[in-house]
């Protein structure tokens, strides 16, 4: 499983030989093609409890990488380790060509945005933005210039004299982002920055962050448990569970070709439908026999040639199922409708296949009612097959 994940990582960039850069990258222009984060053989243990073991991750410059996973999967721990906010047990962390494993957070060339905003409550916006700069002893003019630039960029101009308590949630988070921006660093770390906001604001700020990334081109590492954020923001997503990166790849690949059942079930809403079955080889290729249905797999892209008799889990996403008859290469069957959930734009239809419940995503204005028998079909090429024992994709 680990091997699977690491093969996806991009070629290890720059050795230890990056130029021995002078001070902090404070003065350096962002995105000069140099920045990258590299995590090597990372171990983190709290007492006897290993949270992360042997993790490797290479992030090329300018990438927007999202660490995605359920709570407790180690994604925030990994981010905090990169930031230098917790001591690691073993391994190395390189940022911008420098080994920063034991460097102070401030010396790592990172800016960080926190879930609870973490604004200093007794300082106004301006002082919040400039606190770090003042500590580092930057000239006053330089501080003012940077604060001005960032507050214009984030439309904070009118708020500079306010205290955090006098700001709305969205404004607070923009200040928090601004505090990371004024540091003029190449790497930004986001720790679930939007999860304290309501749905509407969350969407707005998500777009803002995306635009910011397009404009600045910095490396961004973004932790979230929200798959929508991950799918929309990321260049690549690292799906984590139990301190291990399960899959690392572009959003489309994660969605289309999940490496294992966990990734398949974690991405997508409503989740993928799963059915127990058995693979049998046929003259034209293979098929999977479910309880009362047989799905031909001639169009399914196996990683290795299928073995007959192997127990497998067959998965199909609700949005990949269409109602009614469709071209002959698709698999068509029928079932009785148990429940219809209208969701406005979509309708989720609950029926069953092979003795297990099945959800279908369809139009918002469907006239289907519970009790009806419906015909539905899907293209087996869109399905996912997992080994019943190892949960890995077949």
């Amino acid at each position, binding site marked *: 499983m680990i091997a699977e994940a690491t093969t996806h990582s991009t070629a290890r960039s720059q050795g230890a030989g990056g130029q021995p850069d002078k001070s902090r990258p404070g003065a350096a222009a962002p995105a000069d093609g140099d920045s990258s984060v590299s995590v090597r053989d990372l171990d983190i243990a709290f007492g006897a409890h290993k949270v992360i073991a042997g993790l490797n991750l290479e992030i090329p410059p300018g990438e927007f990488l999202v660490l995605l996973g359920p709570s407790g999967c180690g994604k925030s721990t990994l981010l905090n380790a990169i930031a230098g906010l917790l001591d690691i047990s073993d391994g190395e962390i390189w940022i911008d060509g420098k080994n920063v494993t034991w460097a102070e*957070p401030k010396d790592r060339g*990172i800016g*960080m945005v926190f879930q609870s905003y*973490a604004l*200093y409550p007794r300082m106004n916006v301006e002082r919040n933005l400039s*606190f770090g700069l003042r500590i580092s002893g930057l000239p006053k003019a330089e501080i003012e210039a940077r604060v001005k630039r960032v507050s214009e960029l984030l439309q904070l101009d009118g708020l500079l004299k306010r205290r955090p308590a006098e700001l709305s949630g969205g404004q607070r988070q923009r200040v928090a982002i601004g505090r990371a921006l004024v540091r003029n660093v190449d790497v930004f770390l986001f720790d679930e920055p939007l999860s304290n906001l309501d749905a509407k604001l969350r969407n707005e700020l998500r777009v803002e962050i995306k635009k910011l990334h397009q404009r600045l081109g910095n490396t961004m590492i973004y932790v979230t448990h929200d798959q929508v954020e991950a799918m929309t923001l990321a260049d690549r997503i690292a799906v984590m569970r139990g301190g291990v990166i399960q899959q690392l790849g572009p959003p489309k690949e994660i969605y289309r070709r999940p490496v294992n059942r966990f990734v398949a079930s974690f991405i997508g809403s409503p989740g993928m439908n799963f059915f127990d079955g058995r693979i049998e080889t046929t003259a034209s290729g293979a098929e999977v026999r479910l309880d009362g249905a047989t799905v031909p797999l001639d169009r399914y892209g196996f990683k290795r040639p299928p073995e007959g008799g192997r127990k497998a889990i067959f998965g199909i996403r609700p949005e990949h199922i269409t109602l009614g008859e469709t071209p002959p290469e698709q698999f068509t069957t029928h079932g009785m409708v148990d429940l219809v959930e209208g969701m406005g734009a979509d309708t989720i239809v609950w029926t069953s296949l092979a003795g297990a419940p099945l959800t279908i995503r369809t139009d918002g204005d469907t006239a289907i009612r519970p009790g009806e028998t419906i015909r539905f079909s899907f293209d087996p090429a869109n399905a996912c097959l997992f080994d019943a024992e190892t949960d890995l994709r077949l």
Partner: protein
Amino acid sequence: MSIDVTSSREPPKGASALAFRSGSANERAAPSRQREKSPTRGRKPKHLTIGRVGLYAFVAVAAAFFLLPAVVMVLTSLKTMPEIRNGSIFALPESFDLTAWVKAWSSACTGLNCEGIRVGFWNSVVITVPSTIASIAAGATLGYALSFWRVKGADILFAILLLGAFLPYQIFLYPMVRAFSMVGLYNTLACIVIVHVIFGLPIMTLIFRNFYAGLPVELFNAARVDGGGFFRIFWNVMLPMSTPILIVAAILQITNIWNDFILGLVFAGRENLPMTVQLNNVVNSTYGEREYNLNMAATILTAAVPLLVYFVSGRWFVRGIAAGAVKG
């Protein structure tokens, strides 16, 4: 269980007052409907039932039990000695006589000294002010260090302190006396201040540690990313947020140190005896006839500072009590 004593809500007083007094159903209807909507606390009062009468009877007796001693104390202090000898302890004074107060303040005798309780008052002030400031500074620093900085062995340090808070002073006193004598500090102002800081350290550390543990770690992390060190974060980020707990700590320490008897008795020395010790000497070791009016006036004067703190601070005082030992 988290306690926020300050947020205990005001009950809709008017409503229940009206319901209690009025016998007419009409008058009761309106306020009781109002009560349905308002978020009630506790059980709904039943109007003028036996239970309600019993409730108020209990309240009255309880209030009398708590108030009476203070009333008697004030009454006694305003009487003359013949009045005290001949009248009831509950009787009102015949005239408003402040002689005992003046005497208690400026010429009451402890042993051979007859300079009044004011000497003790000023001693207590001189002891309380530096002790309070120093113990808060120490407790805040240590509490901050313990809650944000992972230092090896900090758990053990805190455990010893907690244990120390609960142990009787008697276990520490004698060696301390010996140690202070050796360095020539025994029976000095510095000595009693240091002792107060030492014995105030557990409670101060505990309340500051609890307070800082309640702040988001992310705030600390943000300051670390911004480049703040130990003292910078403490001074610029944490302390400005600590006003509530500083007030609580000040209330606790002022009352604790002012009310202290045993430490002042042992460590302060003859020159610096705090007010409580002096008061006890005035009352319990006078020769000849006891002047009860003077004793009571001196007692009131000794209680005045903590009582003033109590009345001014209101619910902060309760918060201080709760802050001490609630949760870890």
